[in-house]
């Protein structure tokens, strides 16, 4: 039994920097959404304030949180240290300044968003370089590497198309490609980058948080193959305008996601930990929501009702699949980071709290349930175009989301 060090702890200031920033972006995005709700209920999504709010929540909150989580989880999942932590801090500042100025110019002067957008792009490119260099150091690449690596490629494509869209907008060039580029930007950003990232990291976190052992991993290859095929076929259909290919693409995305849900259920059945932690249970429920939304999207497309529901469906996919997953895992990651900072030198010397004792599961259950409820209210309001219902749902959503942020940060008082 030769000793082997697979320790891969990251300087916690790095993931924490991203997570702190993300909470600030979250609050700003909610204020913008609340003050521009009338446009959303009328189906007018493409206005500067909503562009700004959407990018603050997707780039400022979800992407920055995902980056922070990856700085923590990639070493854990891939058994390798972060390539260069100093580079990581520089990347944080470049990306943070980029996103803040980008969101600001989108709001006040969208035509001038190119340079801040480019700065954001540089920050994200630095992150991709950091992660790819880290993954390169992995001794034995596996299917998780394929998910996360492909997710990073999707992120690169998403932001490249985003910059191209801003270029088209500011110069008036390539307007004939604007629509397909915009749809691909959404597809690659949401179902490409975020979904593949969550799939990949879930394969490490689900067994870790449920203490599952002896489960098969062959299904993960099917998930990867089917889902990626769905993405590629959907993109081809967007540019070719082939309706049948679009339906096939959506069907494959749905089957790929369903295979993932089925595989996670197999892993969970093999768990040793009988009672799962609440935040983790919510992260698991997000898989069910994601699966359901893929199903509804396919059915709506098949019955030619998709165009009327595309906005509300993207909204729920973003919040009930991607963001609920991130929130569930964030409630595990933040206590862990703080515990490591505060108690890792105390363990073994005196009694220290468990990670579970650093959070209040009852409060988390209430907050995340309210989060789901408010998203469903907003979904109904957007689908049925009821302004008053939207305002109720959005106020409830913003208050709940900000409460979740504060509740997560409350761990720092423990």
């Amino acid at each position, binding site marked *: *039994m*030769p*000793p*082997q*060090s*697979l*320790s*891969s*702890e990251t300087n916690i200031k790095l993931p924490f920097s991203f997570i702190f920033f993300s909470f600030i972006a979250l609050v700003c995005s909610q204020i913008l959404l609340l003050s521009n709700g009338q446009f959303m209920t009328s189906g007018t999504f493409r206005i500067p304030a909503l562009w700004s709010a959407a990018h603050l929540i997707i780039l400022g909150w979800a992407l920055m949180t995902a980056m922070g989580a990856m700085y*923590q*989880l990639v*070493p*854990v*999942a*891939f*058994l390798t240290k972060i390539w260069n932590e100093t580079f990581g801090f520089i990347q944080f500042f470049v990306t943070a300044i980029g996103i803040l100025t980008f969101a600001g110019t989108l709001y006040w002067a969208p035509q001038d968003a190119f340079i801040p957008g480019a700065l954001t792009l540089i920050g994200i490119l630095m992150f991709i370089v950091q992660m790819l260099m880290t993954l390169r150091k992995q001794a034995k690449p596996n299917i998780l590497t394929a998910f996360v690596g492909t997710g990073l490629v999707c992120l690169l494509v998403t932001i490249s198309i985003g910059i191209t869209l801003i270029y088209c907008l500011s110069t008036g060039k390539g307007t004939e490609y604007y629509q397909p580029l915009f749809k691909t930007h959404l597809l690659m950003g949401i179902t490409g980058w975020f979904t593949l990232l969550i799939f990949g990291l879930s394969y*490490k976190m689900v*067994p*870790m*948080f449920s*203490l599952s*052992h002896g489960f098969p991993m062959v299904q993960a290859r099917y998930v990867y193959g089917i889902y990626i095929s769905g993405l590629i076929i959907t993109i081809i259909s967007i540019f070719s305008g082939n309706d049948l290919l679009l339906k096939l693409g959506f069907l494959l995305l749905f089957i790929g996601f369903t295979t993932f849900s089925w595989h996670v259920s197999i892993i969970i059945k093999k768990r*040793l*930990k*009988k*009672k799962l932690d609440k935040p983790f249970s919510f992260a698991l429920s997000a898989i069910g929501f994601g699966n359901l939304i893929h199903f509804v999207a396919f059915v709506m497309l098949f019955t030619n009702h998709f165009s009327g529901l595309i906005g509300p469906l993207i909204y729920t996919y973003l919040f009930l699949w991607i963001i609920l997953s991130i929130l569930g895992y964030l409630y595990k990651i933040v206590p*862990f980071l703080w*515990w*490591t900072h505060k*108690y*890792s*030198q105390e*363990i*073994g*010397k005196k*009694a*220290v*709290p*468990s*990670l*579970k004792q650093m959070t209040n599961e009852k409060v988390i259950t209430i907050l995340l349930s309210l989060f789901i409820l408010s998203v469903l209210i907003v979904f109904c309001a957007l689908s049925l175009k009821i302004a008053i219902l939207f305002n109720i749902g959005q106020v409830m959503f913003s208050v709940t989301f900000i409460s979740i942020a504060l509740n997560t940060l409350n761990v720092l008082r423990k």
Partner: protein
Amino acid sequence: MSLVEKIREELKSVYDPELGINVVDLGLIYNIEVTEDNDVTVTMTLTTPGCPLHDSISSGVQYCVEGVEETNNVFVHTVWEPAWSPDKMTDEGKRLLGR
């Protein structure tokens, strides 16, 4: 009580902070060796390679054993072969997991 038994008993105060179960009942402690000079080598594992609590738990084991009066130098080796499996848990560990 031998020093090995005493150390094993003391290690029951070191908890995996994620699971809330001590390292002994979790079956993480593979071996405890004590030389004539009371130098101690603990061979241990974790439930999963790359566990984010790797450094914290192994340091906890180190601090704990160093805190046992009779011990001299303490070495903690974390190994992945043989891999941890549920059958390495004690009955108490299984009970705490709700099995």
